[in-house]
């Protein structure tokens, strides 16, 4: 099979069926653009939510000597989920309280009634149930008076993140499905526009694989063009339009901090859909085309 011929025919298809090709590229572009926006927004929402989820448990202690404090610290640090433990003495607690509550409560704070405590940081991947059981284990350590953490916020974040992930994935799958159907049908249109060419090729004894190859090259090129346009649009939207027209949103970062992950995924997906759509559509249509019409 002549590669030169296949590439020449594949690119010539753009001139021969302009409307069908434009429709095909446009539908691919819309699909990949939507997926790109969804990907970038989802990543940012997710990382924001994860940073909120950083859990801190406050462990208030009874009055005790330094050795006992160290024993409690050792036991807490021995827990698998615990990533960091900071001790706040009675004096430090008073200073912090004075700072937070203001001058009006100075006399009250001078009574030095606030207990010493530990601020315990927990692995952010821990679910609420694990945190709950950790809290109850800490509560049972000798010398611990009370254990506090924001149960409600953790549970709300947890359930909202699951819902968000579900909606995000569902939306992504829906867009992908719609895109695949759209791409398949528009590429079928492109192929249908060339039914005379297919009949003539069959007439002179071209194999189905040979007939298919220019369409597949065309599908890949369509995917490449649509993917590039979608990437440029995502860039324009998040680097120029959002900062100018919706500045409150702030910076919507590239996923994983690098532009090329999303760009690569978008162009790759677009090319894949172009290839797949043209392969499927041409396979079916060519098999169903008869020389005699």
């Amino acid at each position, binding site marked *: *099979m*002549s590669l030169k*011929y296949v590439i020449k025919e594949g690119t010539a298809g753009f001139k*021969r069926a302009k409307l069908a090709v434009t429709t095909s590229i446009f539908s691919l572009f819309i699909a990949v653009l939507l997926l790109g926006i969804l990907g970038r927004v989802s990543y940012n929402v997710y990382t924001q939510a994860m940073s909120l989820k950083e859990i801190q448990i406050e462990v208030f202690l009874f009055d005790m000597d330094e050795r006992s404090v160290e024993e409690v610290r050792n036991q807490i640090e021995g827990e698998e989920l615990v990533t960091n433990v900071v001790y706040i003495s009675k004096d430090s607690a008073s200073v912090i309280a004075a700072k937070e509550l203001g001058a009006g409560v100075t006399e009250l704070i001078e009574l030095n009634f606030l207990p010493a405590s530990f601020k315990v940081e927990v692995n952010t991947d821990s679910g609420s149930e694990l945190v709950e059981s950790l809290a109850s284990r800490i509560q049972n350590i000798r010398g611990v008076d009370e254990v506090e953490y924001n149960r409600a916020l953790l549970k709300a974040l947890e359930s909202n993140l699951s819902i968000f992930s579900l909606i995000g994935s569902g939306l992504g799958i829906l867009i992908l499905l719609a895109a695949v159907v759209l791409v398949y049908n528009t590429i079928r249109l492109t192929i249908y526009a060339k039914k*005379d*060419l297919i*009949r*003539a*090729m*069959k*007439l*002179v*004894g*071209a*194999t*189905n694989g*040979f*007939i298919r190859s220019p369409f597949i090259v065309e599908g890949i090129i369509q995917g490449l063009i649509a993917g590039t346009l979608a990437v440029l649009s995502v860039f324009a939207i998040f680097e120029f339009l959002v900062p100018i027209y919706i500045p409150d949103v702030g910076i919507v970062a590239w996923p994983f901090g690098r532009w090329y992950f999303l760009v690569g995924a978008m162009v790759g997906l677009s090319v894949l859909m172009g290839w797949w759509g043209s392969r499927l559509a041409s396979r079916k249509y060519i098999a169903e085309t*008869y*020389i*005699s019409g």
Partner: protein
Amino acid sequence: MSETSVIELRNVSLSFENRRVLNNIDFKLHNGEFTYLIGATGIGKSSFLKLLYRDIVPDTGTVRVTDYPVNKISMKEVPMLRRRLGIVFQDFQLLQDRNVFDNVAFALQVTGEKPKFVKQRVLEVLTMVGLSHRRKHMPKDLSGGEQQRVVIARALANEPRILLADEPTGNLDPGASKSIMDLLKQINNRGMAVLMVTHDYALVKKYPFRTVRMIEGSLQELQWKGDKLVPVK
């Protein structure tokens, strides 16, 4: 298959839309033979040709074209069969977006021939059909007769052993029809078997060759007796 026949049908039956088109027929086309297939419109002459280039398969019987048992080969072998055949239709089936040279070259490019050979062979067949001077013209700039010549050139490009022509003069005026018939005769004189479907009795009379009539699902050999075609006894 007998050694001299390039097409052989045995006990072939074909139904189409609940109508029996062919009823247990036998047929042979010999090497280098010119045969007309005539019959009323819609009787099934084109279906007969479709059986040969495997656009359809018979209900029963066997169809052989050169070495190919047409109704038994896999779909992958069908393109190889078609390369042994030159096929010409009434509607020219030229690609309107490419010139005469490219329309003919296309037949060789799809079979993977090298560009140098393609160029040489295309000029050869265009010269044969008398159109080498029109090679850069687009199909729309050609007359009907010229377009049909391009189609014949394309059909000949792969040096087939058999030319199947389905009403090749059907859309042409008498002058153009004559030039196409002269060309087909010339091709036949070079040793290629030609099976031509037509209902133009004037042409059949003017260029007398073996004539077979399709009638009520059967094939009937005919011969000229005076001005009339009559069944061979």
